[in-house]
C-alpha cells in the first residue's frame, strides 16, 4: 500500500515535472534566440495561432503568461507601480501594466533569463479590447511589425460565413504574408496540417481530463488544478509532439485517480473529502494563487468546471482543430474562444456545467482588470441561479495586482457561500424528512 502510494505520487510528479521541463526548455530557447537567430512572435492566449507560428518555426511569447508568472513570483506589484509611474492609469488592466513594468525592468522571464524582443507582434484581437491597445503600446516600444487579425465577436451567438471568410481572408492575405516575411520561409500548408492533427489529438485528451470532474469525487480541481492542465495547450505547445505526450500521460494519471476513487491533489497535498462541487466563472487571482486555492480546499470545495479553462479555446463542445480545413479551423477556433462568446452563450455554458457536473452552484470571481469577463457577470449570476435553482456566489479580486486581493474579505464571502450551500441542503433534507 505504502509503495503504491509512493509510486503514484511519483506519477503525479512526473506530469508536473514534464510540464515544467517543457516550459523551461521553451524559455531557454527563447533566451538563446538572439544567438541562434530564431525569430519570435508575441501573441495572446485567446485566439493564439500556435500551429501556424510553429509551421514557420516562429517561437511564441505570451505576455499574459509572463504577467501571471511575474505575479506568482511576487514581482507584479513593483512592475505595476513602474507602469503607473510612467502614466498608465490605475483603472486599466494590470496584465498590461505588469508586462510594461517587466519590460522596463529588463524583460526577464520566469526562468530568470532575458526574453527576446519581438520580431513580430501577432495581434490576434480575440475577445478582449485591451489586446489591441496592448500591442499598440508595444509597437511603439519595440518598433516591431504588427500582424493584426481582427476576430469578430459572436454578437448573435454564432459564427456566420461572413465572419469566417473575414478571418480566413485576413490569415491568407495579411497574417501569413507577415509571417513569411519575418521568418523568411514560405507558407507550408502540409506542415500546418500535421500540427493541427496533433492539436486535435491533445485536445481529445484534455477534454477527457476536464470531463473527469463528472466523477464523484472529482479527481481534479478544474479551476486551480485546471490552469496547470491547460498550460501547454493554451500556450506555446499546441500542435507539438510534447503536448501530445503530455496530455496522454496526464490523462492516464487522472484516470488512475478515478479508478482509485481519489479527489484532487493540491499544493498542500491530497484534498480531504469532497463537500462542495462548484462551477467557477472568471480568471483566478495570481498573486495569492495558493492561498486562494487553500480557501477552497480547506472547506472541502472542489471546482468541477470553470470558464477560465476555456479562454484559450473551447473544446468540450465538440470543437477540434480540423487538419482538412486548416485556415477555416483556425478561424473557428479563434471565434470560439470563451471571451468571444456573447453573454447568453456564456450563461448557457455555465448552466450546462452546473447541471452536467452536478454542482452545488456557480461562483464568480470577478476580476477588476478584465472587463471582457467581468462586465455583465452580476446579470449572468442571476440568470444561472434562476435557471438552475442553485445558489450563486460572488467574490472580487484582480489578476496580478496584489492591492486588489483582500484575503479576509474573500474568505469571509467564500465561507458564507459554502455555509449557505450547506444550510440549504440541510433545509431541503429537513423538509424532505
Amino acid at each position, binding site marked *: 500500500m505504502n509503495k503504491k502510494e509512493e509510486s503514484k505520487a511519483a506519477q503525479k510528479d512526473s506530469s508536473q515535472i514534464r510540464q515544467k521541463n517543457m516550459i523551461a526548455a521553451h524559455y531557454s530557447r527563447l533566451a538563446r534566440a538572439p544567438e541562434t537567430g530564431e525569430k519570435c512572435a508575441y501573441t495572446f492566449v485567446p485566439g493564439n495561432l500556435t500551429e501556424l507560428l510553429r509551421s514557420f518555426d516562429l517561437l511564441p511569447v505570451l505576455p499574459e503568461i509572463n504577467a501571471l508568472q511575474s505575479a506568482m513570483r511576487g514581482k507584479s506589484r513593483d512592475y505595476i507601480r513602474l507602469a503607473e509611474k510612467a502614466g498608465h492609469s490605475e483603472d486599466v488592466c494590470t496584465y498590461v501594466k505588469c508586462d510594461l513594468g517587466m519590460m522596463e525592468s529588463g524583460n526577464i522571464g520566469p526562468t530568470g533569463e532575458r526574453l527576446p524582443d519581438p520580431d513580430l507582434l501577432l495581434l490576434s484581437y480575440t475577445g478582449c*479590447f485591451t489586446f*489591441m491597445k496592448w500591442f*499598440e503600446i508595444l509597437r*511603439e516600444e519595440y518598433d516591431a511589425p504588427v500582424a493584426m487579425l481582427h476576430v469578430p465577436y459572436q454578437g448573435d451567438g454564432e459564427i456566420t460565413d*461572413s465572419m469566417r*471568410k473575414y478571418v480566413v481572408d485576413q490569415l491568407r492575405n*495579411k497574417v501569413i504574408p507577415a509571417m513569411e516575411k519575418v521568418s523568411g520561409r514560405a507558407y507550408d500548408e502540409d506542415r500546418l496540417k500535421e500540427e493541427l492533427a496533433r492539436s486535435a489529438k491533445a485536445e481529445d485528451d484534455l477534454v477527457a481530463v476536464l470531463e473527469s470532474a463528472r466523477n464523484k469525487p472529482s479527481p481534479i480541481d478544474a479551476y486551480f488544478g485546471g490552469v496547470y492542465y491547460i498550460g501547454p495547450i493554451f500556450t506555446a505547445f499546441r500542435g507539438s509532439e510534447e503536448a501530445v505526450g503530455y496530455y496522454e500521460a496526464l490523462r492516464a494519471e487522472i484516470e488512475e485517480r478515478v479508478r482509485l476513487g481519489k479527489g484532487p491533489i493540491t499544493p498542500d497535498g491530497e484534498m480531504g473529502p469532497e463537500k462542495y462541487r462548484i462551477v467557477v466563472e472568471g480568471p483566478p487571482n495570481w498573486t495569492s494563487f495558493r492561498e486562494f486555492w487553500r480557501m477552497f480546499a480547506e472547506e472541502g470545495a472542489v471546482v468541477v468546471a470553470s470558464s477560465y479553462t476555456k479562454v484559450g479555446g473551447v473544446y468540450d463542445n465538440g470543437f477540434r482543430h480540423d487538419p482538412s480545413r486548416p485556415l477555416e479551423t483556425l478561424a473557428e477556433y479563434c471565434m470560439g474562444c470563451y471571451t468571444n462568446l456573447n453573454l447568453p452563450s456564456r450563461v448557457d455554458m455555465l448552466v450546462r456545467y452546473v447541471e452536467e457536473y452536478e454542482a452545488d452552484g456557480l461562483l464568480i470571481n470577478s476580476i477588476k482588470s478584465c472587463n*471582457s469577463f467581468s462586465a455583465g457577470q452580476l*446579470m449572468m449570476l442571476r440568470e444561472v441561479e434562476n435557471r438552475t435553482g442553485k445558489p450563486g456566489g460572488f467574490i472580487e479580486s484582480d489578476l496580478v495586482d496584489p492591492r486588489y486581493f483582500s484575503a479576509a474579505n474573500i474568505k469571509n464571502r467564500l465561507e458564507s457561500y459554502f455555509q449557505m450551500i450547506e444550510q440549504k441542503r440541510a433545509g431541503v433534507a429537513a423538509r424532505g424528512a
Partner: protein
Amino acid sequence: MSAADPKTLAERSEEIYRDYEFTTVRRWKERTGGLAIGYMPIYVPRELLHAQGCLPVGILGGGDDLEIIRGDAFYQSYICHIPRSTIELGLNGSLDCLDGMLFPAICDVIRNLSGIWKLKFPDKLSRYLDVPQVFEPELGGMFYRHELEELASELERRGAKPLEPEALRESIRVFNENRALVREVYDLRIREPWKVPSAELYVLMRAGLVLPVEEFTAMLREYLDGVRADEDRKPMDQARILLTGSFCEQPPLGLIKTLERAGCYIVDDDLVQIHRWLLHDIPEDGDPMDRLVQAFLDDSMESPTRYIDERGKGKELVERVEGSRAEGVIFCAPSFCDPALLDQPMVVKAVEKAGIPWTAFKYAENNGQFQVIREQAGTFADSIKLWSGV
C-alpha cells in the same frame, strides 16, 4: 426676442436632451409609424437607418440627474458609469419608445451590454454592430458591408422599409447637408469661440442625437443665423484648449461649464462624436452602400476604439491641435474607460513631443462636484496664458 436667439435654442436643446421620456421620439413615431432605433457611442451608419425609414436615437447614458437604482446592480464598482445609467433607462421604461438598440464595437463593456440587452429585452431588436479593425476594402470592407446588410435585413424583418439604393443615396445627401452645418458650427467655434460657447454647442449636438436629422439641420441653421446676428458676444482672455477622451460616457454639462468658467475656450473636442465621425461628406455618386462602407474605412476620425496601424498614435491629435489653434490639451476621460485610458499615455507622448502643454483628469457622467477640476483647469489656463504672453 426672436426665435433664432441662440440662448433660447440652447435652452430648448437642453430640455430635449434631458428628457428621459424622449417626447420628441415618441411624437416622431406617432407621426411616421417608423421604428426608432437607439444606438450607443460612437458610430453607427445613421444613413442606413434613415433610408429604411427608421429614426436613429443616440443614447449616451443617463447624465447627471438620473438616479441609479437598479443599474448599479449590474455592475461592479470598477466599471464605468454609462452602462449603469443605460440599463436604468431601459428598466425604468424610458427606452420603451425604442424598437431596438445597436451596440457598436467600442469596448468590452458596451459589447457585453449587448448581451445583457438580449437577455433583458428579448423581444426587442438588440444587435452588436461589429466594425472592422482592418481597413482594406476586400477584407474589412467586405465584412463591414455584410454586417450592414444583415442589419438592414433585420430592420426589415422588424417592420422597416427594405433598403433601396436610391433611398440610401438620398439619406446620404440629407446627412451630408447636416454634416456640413455641423462642421460650420465647429469651425466658427475655432475662429470665434466666444460666439459659440461650448456648453451651448454641446446641448445642441446632444439634441441632434434625438431629433430627426431634418429638424436638427434646421435647428443648426437657425443657431448659426442667431449667433452671427448676436453682437453681444465679445472675446475674453481665455486659453484655447482641446478636450479629448470624452467620446463615450459624456461629462456632465456642469463640467463643460466649469472649464469655460475656469478660463478655457474649448476649441475642439470629441464629445458627441458621431456628428463628426466622418471627416468629409460621403460621395453621393456610385453605389451608395459602397460609399457608406468606404467612408467608414477611409474617412473616420482617429479614435482610441479604432486600431491605428503604422501611422502611429497621436499624430492626428497633434494635427487637430494645430488645426484648431489650441494652446493646450485636456485629457478628460471617464473613470474606468479602457479605450481612453489605455490610449492616453501614447497620445500624451505625441503631444509632449510636439511641445504642447497638457493636463488630465477623470470624471463620471454623474459627478456633482467640480471644485478640483475648476482649480486644475484654471491653473492650466493661467499657465498657458502666462506662457503665450512671454
